[in-house]
């Protein structure tokens, strides 16, 4: 098996958690209630914990002398393989919740399937993550319902966020060359197979939340090939600041 494909496959999963965790990290101390602040910080913590497991594994199998931090902080923008969804900004609480909701429902399906991987390390990470992701999914789904079926204002905001973010959902089910190789090897999950279940699950919650399920024909993509939205560069300039400014130091 080609290790480069496995490493790219790991990026494809880990970078989602990394960038979403980073976005959530921006919010600490700025939330609408202390309880949501704590919950979102907790999700961020879980995601970064997962990131560390993936990157430690990637560093271990890499032929180069690299650490988890090199992989997290020292790639160029074009080398990050997260989907566009997770890099979208915290426009308001509805966008934060909407982004989380649309990601969590994918994430839980992915982790469930990843437990069947032929790669023991990935199975172990998936088993550990699945409990966390279940909690994330419950949290974000509950808030979609609260905001959707709350006040007129919150309904409008939640619907707008869902409408706006929907165009980034299709990309979750695209596969790259590395993905295809890993699927063939029994290591990776064939995300194409998760699509129907995903839209069914997400739509059920949206309906329960008295929201409309968007009917879009056009979707955005690019993240999985490292072609990001213009937000990404600014995320990275902060995230990489210390590692870039003080190269090779230990913290």
């Amino acid at each position: 098996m080609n290790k480069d494909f496995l490493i790219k496959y790991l990026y494809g999963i880990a970078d989602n958690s990394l960038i979403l965790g980073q976005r959530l990290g921006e919010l600490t101390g700025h939330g609408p209630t202390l309880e949501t602040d704590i919950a979102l910080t907790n999700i961020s913590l879980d995601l970064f914990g997962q990131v560390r497991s993936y990157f430690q594994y990637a560093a271990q199998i890499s032929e180069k002398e690299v650490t988890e931090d090199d992989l997290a902080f020292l790639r160029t923008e074009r080398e990050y393989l997260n989907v566009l969804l997770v890099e979208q900004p915290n426009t308001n609480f509805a966008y934060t919740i909407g982004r989380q909701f649309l990601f969590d429902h994918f994430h839980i399906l992915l982790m469930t399937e990843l437990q069947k991987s032929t790669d023991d390390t990935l199975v172990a990470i998936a088993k550990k993550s699945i409990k966390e992701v279940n909690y994330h999914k419950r949290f974000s789904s509950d808030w979609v319902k609260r905001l959707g079926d709350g006040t007129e204002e919150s309904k409008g905001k939640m619907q707008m966020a869902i409408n706006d973010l929907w165009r980034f959902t299709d990309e979750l089910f695209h596969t790259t060359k590395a993905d295809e190789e890993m699927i063939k090897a029994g290591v990776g999950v064939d995300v194409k197979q998760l699509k129907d279940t995903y839209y069914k699950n997400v739509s059920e919650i949206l309906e329960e939340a008295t929201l409309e399920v968007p009917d879009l024909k056009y979707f955005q993509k690019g993240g999985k090939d490292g072609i990001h939205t213009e937000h990404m560069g600014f995320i990275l300039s902060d995230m990489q600041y210390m590692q870039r400014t003080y190269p090779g130091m230990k913290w």
Partner: protein
Amino acid sequence: MSEKEIKNLEEIFEAKIARDEKIEPKDWMPEKYRKTHIRQMSQHAHSEIVGMLPEGNWITRAPSLRRKVALLAKVQDEAGHGLYLYSATETLGISRDELYDQLHSGKAKYSSIFNYPTITWADIGAIGWLVDGAAIINQVPLCSTSFGPYARAMVRVCKEESFHQRQGYEIMLTLCKGTPEQKEMAQDALNRWWWPSLMMFGPTDDESTHTEQSMKWKLKRKTNDELRQQFIDQTVPQADILGIKVPDEDLKWNEETGHYDFGKINWDEFWQVVKGHGPCNKERLQTRVDAWEGGEWVRDAAMAYAEKQADKKVKRAG
């Protein structure tokens, strides 16, 4: 109630405190006790919440994954402390919304230390080491204060603060063992945080009010100056281990007293910050107000949803 009855209640109350028994929310308590506790406990809660901001400022820029996770967890702990402390304060018959209003209107204070900016990564280390260190010295005695909910909250808070303090010191140690640039960063952070940390113990004893009353209620066990001395005595040797210099020309060990002598604190700066004119007072308060006001529609939605759900339950039951 007759004056005699009140007198009687007061005696029972004071005897209880003297016997080191806890006062609980349902117990009778003098109005002044209640008010003083609301003031101090909410100020403490507000400090946790505002204190999230200077550290939160570095979450997106933490230099390694390990440090980022630790910092997130620390700031989350502070939110948790805020939560216990607000809950404990609410047992005294004041709502969280009222407490927030007091913070946002500037009526309630929070610890002045959080009005200083975090401008390098070393500040995250220095805050853990010095600010949490000072906080622990202020707070450990509160674990056995007379008001039950406060005392219990403080037990949990102090345990976590100790962990944060060690973590902060470990950041400093890593920097001081690192490159000359990193060590310089650590020294610079010590230079900027040292004096504000000393100010965390409040004005000197001769300028401090309420001390006697607070001692009786076990809200205080030592004076500001005693606590400050304890902090200095404990911290200077730690700086020595780091190999960085406390920015005080007058600092020196006094064999006779068994304590460090130290230089004059800039009380003008202290009062300037207390009065709202520190480097970040405006920004910190504005950030909290923006978060609160910007989140109103979310809280309203949650309330409306909860009501609808309750209605549905009633209908289903009926």
